[in-house]
Each structure stands twice: as C-alpha cells, then as structure tokens.
C-alpha cells in the first residue's frame, strides 16, 4: 500500500490591530473598572432616569427598567422578586429618574504628542477617556466626546451603550496630535454646545494661555456644569530631568532653544510650579476638581483611586 506524504503548510497570520475599547482597556482593567461609579457632585439633567439627582420634581410610577443596586440607592425600590429569582439586588427605575451625561473634552494638540518614555500624553489621555467612558456606560450613564485642538475636530453626543463607546474610541484612534494648544476657544465652543447640565471631563495638558483656559473653565461653571480637569503631564515636563544639554524643539511652534537642563532645572521648577499652582487655585475657586495625571503612573490605578475618592466625597 502506498502511503501518500502529507504536506504541511504553515501559514503565519498577523494578529489584527485592536480597535475601539479593546485597544485601550484589557479585561483586567475592565474588571477593575466594573466596580467604579462616576458621581457628579452637582445636580445634572439626564435623558434617562438614573441614580443622579434630577432637578425635575416628582417621581414616575412607570417602571422603566432595573438597575443594579448601588450604595446610595433607595432600598424601597429594590425589586424583591428579582432578588428572589437571581439572589441579586436590583432597583426599579422609573421614567422620571435621570442618568448622568458625561462629556469628555479630549485635547489633541501637538503638545499632547510628547512622551519621554513608552507612552505619549495623547495615548494616555485616550486611555483615560476610555476608562472614564467605560465606567460611565457601566453605570448606565451616557458619555459623549469632544475631540479638539484649537477647534472641535470631533463631537459625539452622549449615548448610553458600549457600542457607542466603542465607536467613539475608534474615531479617536483615527486622530493624531497636531495643531497648537489654543484650546480655550474650543472649550468655549464645547461649553456653548452642551445644553443640559452635564459632567464635563477635560483631559488636556493645558499648556496654553492659562488665563484664557481659566475663563473657558469658568464658562462651563457658569452653565452649571460639573467640571473635572485632568491635566495630563509627562514627568519630564515637570522635573526637566535631562542629563545633557541640548536643543529643545517646541512640538507646536518648532522653535528651538539651547538649554543645559542641569543649570536650568531650579528656575524651571519655579516657573512650572507657578503654572501648576495657578490652575490649582483657579480651579479651587471655581469648585472644579483639578487633578494631575502623570503618564508614568498606571492609568487604571489613577482612575480607580480618583473615582473612589470622588465617590466618597460626593456623599
């Protein structure tokens, strides 16, 4: 009997690039984010009835849907039948409960493209946006996006679905940092376009005109939005811990300056410290939650720690 030799062909296949949510969040991170809730400190207006306080009076008796019970929910709305069936706590939501609208203003100016290590500020900011979006959607709140530089490059309305989040993040992946950091104008535009009270999360390095940006932030507050400012910075931007002199080139203006970082470090720290402090004080006055996210810290740790603290402070 003649045995035929079998030919084995090995075909290499490339792993397709991840897109959307999967590009920014791995299952472990999602698992960590599952338990988090993004709370608004102020009264918001949502398009769905949710756990957030609503400025509207009354309480509809029309059942809308269930929501997983969370700390702070009214126990009298617990659906005991569901508990008996599933051994899980759910509350009933009625039509006139309001959910949170979260709008993320993501800066894609050229300065956001800087990164001294493995990750740029823009990538880190996108990661932050993804995490925040995931937490928001998970809490059955809605999330929207404004991608801007000196103008709004992308505007996506707030929706409450993972698919929306995925699409949002896919769109973000298509953009690269460019243009100048004249974000004040863009922020004013964003403030004008968000009609209902919402939670505005500004993710930017804020390396623009501090006064103009502060005014833009005030615009948000004037419209009664809850504002969170997440200033994304690279550790090198703070410490200037370069070891050798060099020609430093501005990513936005392409200007150059020859500097010996060792000699300049002390004065640079003073100047940059003043810059940070100016934002800190301004945000504190406007009751804006101002945080600094360093790109050398794990994103999920930052989100988890921040949101836990925010939730605690929101009670």
């Amino acid at each position, binding site marked *: 009997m003649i045995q035929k030799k079998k030919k084995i062909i090995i075909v290499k296949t490339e792993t397709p690039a991840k897109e959307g949510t999967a590009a920014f969040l791995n299952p472990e991170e999602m698992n960590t984010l599952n338990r988090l809730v993004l709370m608004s400190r102020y009264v918001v207006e949502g398009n769905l009835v949710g756990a957030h306080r609503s400025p509207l009076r009354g309480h509809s008796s029309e059942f809308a849907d269930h929501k997983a019970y969370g700390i702070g929910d009214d126990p009298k709305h617990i659906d005991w039948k569901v508990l008996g069936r599933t051994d899980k706590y759910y509350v009933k939501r009625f039509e006139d409960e309001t959910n949170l609208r979260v709008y993320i203003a993501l800066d894609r100016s050229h300065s956001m493209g800087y990164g001294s290590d493995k990750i740029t500020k823009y990538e880190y900011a996108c990661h932050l946006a993804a995490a925040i979006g995931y937490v928001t959607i998970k809490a059955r709140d809605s999330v929207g996006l404004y991608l801007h530089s000196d103008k709004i490059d992308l505007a996506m309305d707030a929706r409450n679905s993972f698919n929306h989040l995925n699409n949002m993040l896919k769109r973000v992946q298509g953009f690269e940092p460019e243009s100048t950091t004249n974000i004040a104008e863009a922020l004013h535009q964003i403030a004008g376009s968000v009609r209902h009270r919402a939670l505005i999360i500004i993710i930017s390095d804020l390396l623009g005109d501090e006064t103009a940006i502060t005014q833009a932030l005030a615009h948000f507050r004037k419209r009664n939005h809850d504002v969170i400012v997440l200033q994304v910075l690279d550790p090198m931007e703070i410490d200037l811990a370069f070891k050798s002199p060099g020609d430093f080139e*501005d990513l936005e203006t392409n200007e150059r300056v020859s500097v010996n970082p060792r000699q300049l470090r002390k004065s640079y720290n003073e100047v940059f410290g003043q810059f940070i402090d100016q934002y800190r004080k301004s945000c504190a006055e406007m009751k804006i939650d101002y945080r600094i996210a360093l790109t050398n810290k794990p994103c999920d740790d930052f989100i988890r720690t921040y949101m836990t603290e925010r939730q605690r402070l929101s009670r």
Partner: protein
Amino acid sequence: MFALISPLFFYVIGSIGVIIPLVLHLIQNRKTVKMPFSTIRFLLLAQEKSASRIRMENILLWIIRTCLLVFLALAFAMPMLRSKRMGTFFGRSPRDVAIVIDGSYSMDYNLGSKTVWTKSIDTATVICEGLSEQDRLCIFVARDHVEPIIEQLSGDIDAAISQIKALEFTQRSSQLAPAVMAAYDALTEADTRREREIHIITDMQALPWDSFGSQGATGDTVNASIDSAENDETENADPATTSSIGVWDPGKIDQKRSTFFVSLLGAESPENMSPLQLKIEPQLILANTSSKATVRIGYTGPAKSTTATLWIDDKEVSTQSIIVDANQTVECSFLVPPMSGGWHAARVEIPDDNLLLDNTFHVLVSVKERFPTLCVGSRDDTLFLRAALKAGQSKGGIEADWVEPGSINEDKLAEYSCIFLCNALPLAGGEVSALESFVDRGGLLVVFPGNSAMLGDYQAWNCLPALPTMIEPVGNSKRKEILHWETRQHALLQSLKIGESTLSVVNSKRLVWDKLEEHAESIILHGENPFMAGRKYGHGYVLLFSVSADRSWTDFPLSPFYLPIIHQIVEFGAGVGSHPQYVWCSDNIPLSQCLPEATYNTVLEAPDGTRLPVSSTLMGLQTVLSIENLNQAGIYRMTPPNGGEPVPALAVNMQRTESNLTPLDPAEIPDKLAVENVQVARDQEELLAQLMESRVGITFGEHLLWVVLILAILEFLLANRLSKGTSSMGPKLGIDAAGKPSTTQAGGGSN
C-alpha cells in the same frame, strides 16, 4: 627677586592651561542634541530668570578651572623668590665668601666616625665647591690669634680647597670674634656691590662666642700665657687677651648684603673631663720629703664616676676614684712620695674620652737637695742670723756660709739661692753690680740696714724696694708696736704658721722711706710704719728690712718671729727663681722667664722628639732668647750644657679653657652676632639647603600645589552641585495617587 626655575612649564603649559577651559567651553556649547519637547515656553521663562546666575556660575567655574591649570603649570615651573634684593632674574649674583673655621682643640671632639674638625674641613670644602667662577673667597682660622689662610679675596677656588684640606689641627684655644671681624674686613676691602657670605664653622661650644659680647683688648701675648700658669688662674685665663684684633662691632656690618651662616657641627650633649690644674705643694720640695699633689678636674656632661692617676717620672704613683656631678669641678689629692733632688716630670691622667687632648696635665717638679745661703756682714752683725740659719740647717736643707763685707766672691754668688746683707753696706760698686746680677738671675737678696751705712749708700742700688730717706730713732711711745701683714697673699707669709697681730717688736731705730720703687710692695708693717718691703727684680727678689739684723736697732732677733721668718725667707729664696711648674702652649715664649739657664746653644726636645732650637731677638740693648712653636703638650727636655742625657726642662699644657664644652643654644647666636641675616645649621645638609635658599631662592612649587588641590576640590564641589541640580519637582508638588496636587506652592513662586 622673582624667578622661575623651569620657565618652560609656565609659558607653554600655562598658556595651554588657560586656553583649554575656554576651548572646551566653546566646543561644549556647539555640541547640541535635538530634543523634541512639548513646549519651550517654560524653558524660555526659566532661562530668562536664571540667565545671570548661570552666567556667573559658568564664569566662576571657568575662572577656577583656568586658575587651577595656571597654578599647576606655575607649580611645575618652580617659581622662586630670592631673599636678597640683588641678583639677576634667571640666576644668582657673584658673591664674596669668607670662611672662618674654629681652630680650637675642642674641635678634636670625636663624634664617632669623624671628629668635629674633620667635619669642619669637609663642610668648608663643600662650601668652596658650591661657588661659581665669579665668586671669591677668603679663609681664616680662629685660634688664640687670627690665622689667615687666604687673607685677601681670591677667585682660585681649587687652591683654596687644597689649602683647607692641608689645614692642621693645633692644640690651642680660640675666640671667634676677632677672626670673624678680620674676615669681614677682608670682604669690605673688595667690591661693595657684591653679596657677602660669612661662614662660621665651629662646634656647639659656648665659650668661643663669649668674645662677641666682650671687649677685646690688646696685650702681651706671651706674658699672658706664663702669668696665667703662674697665677693658677687656668679657668679664668682669657685667650681673648692674646688677640690683637679689635672688638666685635656689628655696626660695621652691612646688614643688607651680608649673610652669616653658622655651622654648629659639634655634639649636642658633649661629655668631656679634663684635669684643669695640678699643683704640687709645697712649691719648694726638699729631697726625701713627701709632698701633696692636688688636681682640679673639670667636667662637662652628666654625673659620672671615673679615676685619675698620678704619674711621676713615667711611673704610676697612685689612682684616685672620682665622682663628679653634672657640669661640675672637683678636686682630688694625691700623696707624693719622697723624691730625689732634681727635676721630676709629673702628670695626672684621666681615662680616654671623646676629647683626648686635654686628658693629661703635665707639671715639672723641682726637688731641692739643699738651700745654699750666704750671710754677708760682720760676725756681730750676723750673730743672730747665723744662729737662726744654723737651726735651719739641722732641720734640713739650709747650708749657710758667712763672709765679711768686702770679701764677697762675685763668681760664686750663683751657687746661692739667698744672700743676707747684715749691716754690710756700703759695698763696692762691683759687689753691688754682682749682687744685682745675682738677683736678676733669680736670687733672693735680703738687706738688713745698720749703723755702717749712710743714706747715700743706698742710692747706688737699683734693686732695692725703696730708697730710704731717713734713719731715725723711734720715739718711746712708738717703739713697741704690733707687726701686721700688709700683703697677706705674699708667698713669704702664706706658709708662716705664726699669725699676724700677735707679735710685738720694739724698734729703737729704723729706716724710713716715703715711696716704694717699681714692682715693690710693703709686706710687713710695724704699727703704721714699714717693717719689711719686697721687690721683684729681674727673675729674683729683694727684701729690705727697716731694722737691723742684730739687737742694735730692734729686739726683733729675740722675738719668736725671727727664726721662722728667716727660714721662710731662705725657702722663699730657693723658689723665687725657679721654673714655673708648667706653661701654656704658645707660638713663642721668652726663655728668661721659664728657662733662665737656657743659652744660645740650647735645644729643646719636644714630646714627639722634634728638636726646637732657641732663637734670639735683639730688643733694645738686650738680647732675648725665646723658643717657638711650643704647640705640643707634654714635657720638653733639654740636653745639659755638659752633655749627658736630656733632662726635663719645661712642662707645657694646653689652655684648658676649651675643655669646657658647655653647649651653646643655637637660638642665642643671632643675639650674639647682633646682625639680621643669620642662618644656623646643625649639619652639612641643612647648611646646603640654607645656601640654596639664600643663593637661589625659595621655591613656591609646593605651596602652589596646595593651592591647586584646594581649587580642584572647589571645582569638584561647585560642578557637582551644579550637576546635581535640584531635587525632583514631583514630590514637591505633592501629587497624590488620585492626582490631587498639594496646597503647598512648588518652586517658591507665587501668583
């Protein structure tokens, strides 16, 4: 004057050192690495804020680094600063050098492998070898006189070195001041624009430096050497009196151009023992009688015990143990056994130490068989005298002859040691001359006046202690008076066992004189009036009584004082013209004082066998016999005129002043010299280093290297501080895990 030993280092490397930091700075600024950054806004602000500070830091670092390299180059270039104003920039000026070497016998001190003298010769040679062709030098040796070796400045260095090496050591003492003054005078005779060096090479002994603080005096060099021996003032004999050079005058020294280099080559703590003096008593020793030898021993050093040995005629007599305290003088005595008549050589020896030359002390002892005495006068006049002399004959030694006046045998006068004239005047002129010659040769003449002589009869005499002016009877109230010793230290009275102020004598008549002649002295007084006077005449002595030898003028012959004084006079006469027991080393000694029996034909034999002939010099109307080069210590022998074996004639010792080796504190030398520029060295190496510093200059290379080290540390700290920069800003911001910055202002700025 500033100079560089190795200027190449400074000019070439120093220039490179200045350029390197500048070039590096420029090169560094051009080397740039392109670094993309988010925004340069804060860099520009920071740069603007710290521009001046950074500029100052850069300039400071540049200065420190440049100075570091410049000083390093300068250190290797060995900059010098000369201590003299004069001198060319790249070399040293010609100089005049005077070398004074201490020629005393203390320089023979043994230091182990060499003596101080040998080291001094070596040092003097090294000084000469360090001179250049343009330099000149003169050399003097300080002995008890100044001995010029090269008296005038000479440029022949080789000849000078040869003469230095040919210098011989002598057993003499020294004083440095006269020699140094002579050396300086030699320098000043030459070109005054040259630098001057005066080298004094000596041991650590303090004694030679005393002359810098004392008045020097001119004096008889010869008599001093004998007088001091006779006077037993060994320790106090000041050889400075032998110098004919003037005092040390620091005011004559040109302080700006002159530098004194003192080389102290002796031992710091010397030890030396030396017999300083040996006396054998009584001075006049009779044959077959015992005597006593007393030796005084001087010692420099810590307390120790040793021995001293007495030798008579090269036979050991006895040895004494001696315990001497530190730097003390001690005496010890020996019993001298009876000796036969004649001259005997005696010496005291101590064990060998580091200075051998002064370990023996020689004396010559004269032992008399008899005391030949002559009485001149009538039988009656000499009655009591002869009786007294007869008593002495039985005692031993006195042999008395008697002649009438006018019967004096002039030829035989030399056989006597003592002649009494008892109322013998007037005498014939020939007899007077003969008696004066007798005294001049060393005899003792004793004159008792009497009724025979008138005042004018005394005028013919030249040797009397006084010329009487009166012969007077003594008033009743003053006849009986107490005898007083006017000159207590007189040899005549020293051995008398009768005390003064206990004897009264009744005088009825006496000679009176108003004044004493030259070299005369009043010895005994009768109340307030002279009783006995004496006078040294030539080598002899004359005694003049104011009363007669018999009872005609006084009851003196009946007093208990008469016999002892007569016997004492006889013994005194026997010793008057005798030789001194010893003399000091000298270049020239008149023999009339120490060896009167010497003649033109006399030849002395030195201890080493060298024959020293007698030399004669005409001084005025007199011919003076002298002996030269008595520089060896020991017994000199003389062949008698009749032939036969040489007999001891002269004992010669070194001046013992140099045996005191008490060291000098080197710090006292500048005060003693009283000049500004004095360098004191303890050995040859130190001297050479001082010479280098003086002639070439002080190099600041080492100092600059220390400065370089400090600059390097400073540069390291400053650069390191700059490079470290400030601490991280992150912790200063106080950003917590949730991203919230602290309320503390970071960086110190304010809004």
